[in-house]
């Protein structure tokens, strides 16, 4: 049994393929079963109804907004976690990752007691004239809460893989910390940042539990696509299936996009000599 000569050990026992096929089937089969249930003659009218279009539009808008918020809040967090050194760093990392494992409904309850009318900050915000409950802002906050860890994890991983040698060199050449960050660190990890952002967008798009608990459900304001599907399911199974397919299509597109960039990012450290150029090229490709 000879392995293909690809410069390293790349052999996988054949039986693994059997189990892998079972794993793949386990994911694909339910999706195929759903596609088989689609009422194609009604498909276009079902997904272009006013309620459906408003839900899709709201989902895309809020997911884009929460992705921006994730970048604004997540990039500094990832930098501090990967490059900084301070007491309580491990605790902070665990806490930031918590929304990954929490049921979203728990996140919704937590947000309610923070930003809700009776919540920790809610009263102060209300005095300032800001009402978050039942608004699109509440949807964005719920999505950001659950999606932030995806960005932090991706970016922190990219930062650790990239190492800080180039940053050290830049610093010895007289660049200030902000210049190093802007000219060296961020370009180096751009693919990781991009895939993290895409994953955050995808997670925001699928957000359901926290939104339902925290933001409510009103057409055009807080009823995102997953909430619309949940509601349609009560009376119109065809509509629910059709909209689910739309969400699957958007998710597939997003995941495909995310998987293009990390591969480029992973390739970079393999050829250590040309790491910067590869990373730059990958960054360029993403852009």
């Amino acid at each position, binding site marked *: 049994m000879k392995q293909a000569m690809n410069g390293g050990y790349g052999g996988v026992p054949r039986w693994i393929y059997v189990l892998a096929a079972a794993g793949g089937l386990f994911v694909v089969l339910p999706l195929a079963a759903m596609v088989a249930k689609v009422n194609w003659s009604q498909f276009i009218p079902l997904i272009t109804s006013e309620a459906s279009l408003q839900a899709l539009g709201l989902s895309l808008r809020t997911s884009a907004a929460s992705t921006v918020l994730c970048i604004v809040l997540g990039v500094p967090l990832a930098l501090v976690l990967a490059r900084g050194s301070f007491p309580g760093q491990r605790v902070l990392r665990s806490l930031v990752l918590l929304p990954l494992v929490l049921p979203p409904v728990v996140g919704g309850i937590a947000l309610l007691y923070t930003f809700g009318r*009776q919540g920790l900050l809610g009263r102060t915000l209300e005095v300032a004239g800001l009402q978050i409950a039942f608004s699109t802002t509440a949807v964005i906050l719920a999505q950001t809460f659950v999606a932030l860890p995806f960005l932090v994890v991706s970016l922190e991983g990219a930062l650790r893989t990239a190492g800080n040698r180039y940053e050290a060199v830049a610093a010895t050449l007289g660049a200030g910390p902000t210049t190093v960050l802007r000219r060296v660190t961020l370009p180096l990890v751009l693919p990781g940042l991009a895939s993290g952002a895409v994953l955050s967008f995808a997670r925001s798009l699928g957000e359901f539990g926290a939104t339902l608990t925290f933001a*409510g459900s009103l057409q055009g304001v807080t009823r995102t696509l997953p909430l619309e599907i949940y509601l349609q399911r009560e009376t119109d199974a065809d509509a629910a299936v059709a909209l689910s397919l739309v969400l699957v299509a958007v998710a597939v597109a997003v995941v495909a996009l995310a998987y293009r960039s990390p591969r480029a990012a992973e390739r970079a450290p393999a050829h250590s000599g040309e790491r910067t150029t590869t990373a730059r090229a990958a960054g360029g490709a993403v852009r």
Partner: protein
Amino acid sequence: MSTRKHARYALIAALLLGLAACAPASTTPTASQPATSQSPDATGQVSGTITVFAAASLKATFTQLASDFEAKNPGAKILLSFAGSSDLATQITQGAPADVFASADTKNMTRLADTKLLDGTAKNFATNVLEIAVPPSNPASIASFVDLARPGVKVVVCASQVPCGAAADTVEKAAGVTLSPVSEESSVTDVLGKVTSGEADAGLVYVTDVIGAGDKVKGIPFDESGKAVNTYPIATVGSSRNKELAAAFIAMVTGPDGQKTLSDAGFGAP
């Protein structure tokens, strides 16, 4: 090397066979329910196990009724599953092992009757009407249904697609008032949650939800609620393996003991 590999293949094959051998036992419903097909014993008591699918709004009362029933019939065991009526009806259509179905509306029961999934006909056992629920402090000073339409009042209702939302639409029409809710939830418990957490100034829920929530909300009855009365039917599911026990449980729910528990919880007589 090759013998070790073979040994590994054999191990995996054995594991897979083991899994295959386990599978039928755990997926065949009959295997777990041999005790259900029992007949009444000499004392007229019923025994065995049945699964009751009941609307979410029946949670408190049916939990009580099931334990009362088990106390009277020591050989009987009632398993309860609560969810939205349309969810439960869908599950039964897909072959879920239910013996009794108690729906919060006639629509979902009719759906099962039309597809011949019921044994006999359904019997109405309770009614429920809407009530306004407000936080105990009543921040928006709601006193009547018309107050809900005041600008600035944050009202939460059910979406029209679910029974409580359909009822809300009906009373709105009857009262000649158009509400502009801040949220249309997909279940009555979500409406109640928005009121108990103080997010909403008022919500339209069932009388029984207000009673069930205790002092976390205040209920405000209104005249127009009588225009939208939800009727709760109960029936034996056709595929039940213990129709005797199912019938005995239904008889208890529709009988004096069951009706007393239901009316204590705020349900109306059918």
